[in-house]
């Protein structure tokens, strides 16, 4: 029983990272209709910023998260304004190609700058945690989950309560009508992608704490973000939160199947995704449009 409770806790905690990875990806996909294959690269850039600030300036890794967000927002805004906006109305395949290419460029730039060494952020309190009998709640994943929820709440607030957020929502609902009422599409697109990148940056900061990063370490996260967003449902931040936590839980229980169960943890997650697509195409929490 204690083992079961522990697994639930670990699964939910691991879900924190998936939430953080998923919200940015879901935003860009939902509003811009871009399946952003460069998302993993943006995630890892955030990871490197956190690592650099931690090792060079000894800043607490959680305090570097706002820096990740701002830096990645600027980068994302620039990328969208300068590059992706040019093909925003082209067929889906073009955005696939472009973001795939961007991913290659970013990963190889990181390789040039940081080399291929494995980097990890290990603060003094890493590995410590709360203990209740045999149940352990480690601090780092706990704070990470908190940060991911906070990030999602912030994003939800921004999208639903601010002028630019409402503009983004309007574009997601009807691009042409939004333009008719005077919304600057290019700016709003760039802000959206920037916000997506900022979320990716925060996710990267969290990832640098739980694993060792290399320039190519972000690639699996693009795929996981995809599953998380589908699981939860497109178009709502809260849906992605549910999707991320569900993904963490499924992974934890998939891994704990005796014998070679963990080998199929991904297959189980994807199987669940297919199941959700068949039975609830809008996702666990999504709204049908």
């Amino acid at each position, binding site marked *: 029983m204690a083992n079961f409770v522990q697994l639930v806790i670990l699964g939910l905690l*691991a879900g924190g990272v998936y939430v953080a990875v998923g919200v940015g990806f879901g935003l860009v996909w939902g509003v811009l209709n871009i399946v952003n294959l460069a998302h993993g690269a943006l995630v890892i850039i955030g990871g490197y910023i956190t690592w650099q600030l931690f090792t060079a300036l000894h800043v607490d890794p959680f305090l570097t998260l706002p820096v990740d967000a701002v830096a990645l927002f600027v980068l994302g805004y620039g990328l969208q304004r300068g590059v992706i906006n040019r093909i925003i109305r082209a067929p889906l395949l073009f955005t696939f190609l472009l973001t795939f290419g961007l991913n290659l460029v970013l990963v190889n730039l990181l390789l040039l700058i940081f080399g291929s060494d494995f980097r990890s952020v290990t603060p003094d309190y890493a590995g410590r945690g709360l203990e209740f009998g045999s149940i352990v709640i480690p601090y*780092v994943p706990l704070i990470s989950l908190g940060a991911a929820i906070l990030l999602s709440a912030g994003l939800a607030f921004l999208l639903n309560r601010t002028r630019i957020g409402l503009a983004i929502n309007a574009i997601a609902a009807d691009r042409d009508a939004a333009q008719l009422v005077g919304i600057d599409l290019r700016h709003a697109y760039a802000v959206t992608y920037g916000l997506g990148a900022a979320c990716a940056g925060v996710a990267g900061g969290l990832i640098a704490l739980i694993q*060792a990063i290399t320039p190519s370490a972000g690639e699996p996260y693009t795929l996981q973000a995809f599953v998380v967003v589908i699981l939860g449902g497109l178009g709502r931040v809260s849906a992605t939160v549910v999707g991320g936590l569900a993904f963490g839980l499924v*992974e934890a229980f*998939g891994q704990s199947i005796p014998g070679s169960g963990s080998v199929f943890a991904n297959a189980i997650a994807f199987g669940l995704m297919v199941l959700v697509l068949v039975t609830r195409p809008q996702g666990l929490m999504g709204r049908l449009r």
Partner: protein
Amino acid sequence: MAVRKLALLAVAAVAAFACGTTSAGPTTGSTITLGAPLGLTGSLTKESQLTQQGYDLWSDWINARGGILVNNVKHPVVIKYYDDTSNANQSAVLMQKLITEDKANFLLGPYGSAATATDAVVAETNQIPMVEANGAAQSIFNQGYKYTFGVLSPANKYLQGVIDMAATLNPKPTTVAMLSADDNFSLEVANAINTYAPTKGFNVVLFKKYKNGATNLTAEVQAAKAANADIVLNSGHLQEAIAINKAAKEQKLNAKIFAYSVGPSTPDFITALGADANYVYDGSQWTPQVKYTPAFYLTESQYVAAYKAKYPTFGDPDYHVAESTAACLALQRAIENAGSLDAAKVRDALAALDVTVFFGQIKFDSRGINIYKPMVVEQIQNGVHHTVFPDSVADAKPMYPTPSWDQR
């Protein structure tokens, strides 16, 4: 102007003199092209880079001596690299390109068992010898190939040393939890332990496979904790070793021995984990502390010095570098012994090779893998790698048992 003319004259004289003297020694022959696809980008970038360093250290050395001596003719060496993006299939494509387009005389292995396995097929169909240093899975060598030679100890030896060492410790640990990635190489390492540990009086209480490249291993660590094993072994790669060690601390998995097949020997393991890397063991192909009597090339200490001079930011060379250099040495000696650049003759010379270099004895069994060189066990003690087993090459005693996470 006059001074300039004089200088030119002097240079000409020296050049003439130099030519005059060298003509008495070996002449310079055609360049030998060696081909090697490496994962210069992608998930195996780090290990591939170490492999390349090992190859380059040797090519610098041999070219500084004019090249490989074949029948009194010195052949300079060029190693042609391609980036296989850490993809085994791509590696085989590039290997073929190296043979057909770049006319590579001989082949050096890629990084990793997966790519080595696909490249071995290419070497075999083209009948060009490949000497490799980074594919330890025996499945590569059980196909009856005649043109693939591995200088390193096979996968089944990787963690056996840790079991042998554990059998000598007091109080003797009794139970083993074995975690393993699901790729060929890792499974061979793990399966070997599954059969070997019981013969030494250990009880394997957990055997768990996970997806190769997994970054979240909390559930595996939780299973090892529930099994309450004295020895926690992992057969995987650097990334997974780091993830397991982090999760072990978070989840208070306290074992007497933590040993990981690949990872702890690299400097990255220590920089990524800091003090948490202490007490971790690994099975290593080679450490700078081993003592062999080399028949040619450098001694261990000279090798370390040469590495540090060429790569000053990297610290001591790890075993990936050393084994890669050893592959070049095996090829060099085989070409010299064959007295020819003919692929078939060099293959036969490789099959008959028996030479000791700084890396240890290089000799191939009938399958082409080096089962004659022992593995050693390393432990990280206060942030430094020490060789702790076998006693004959050890420079420190094992720090045993590993203290619990609360007491570090």
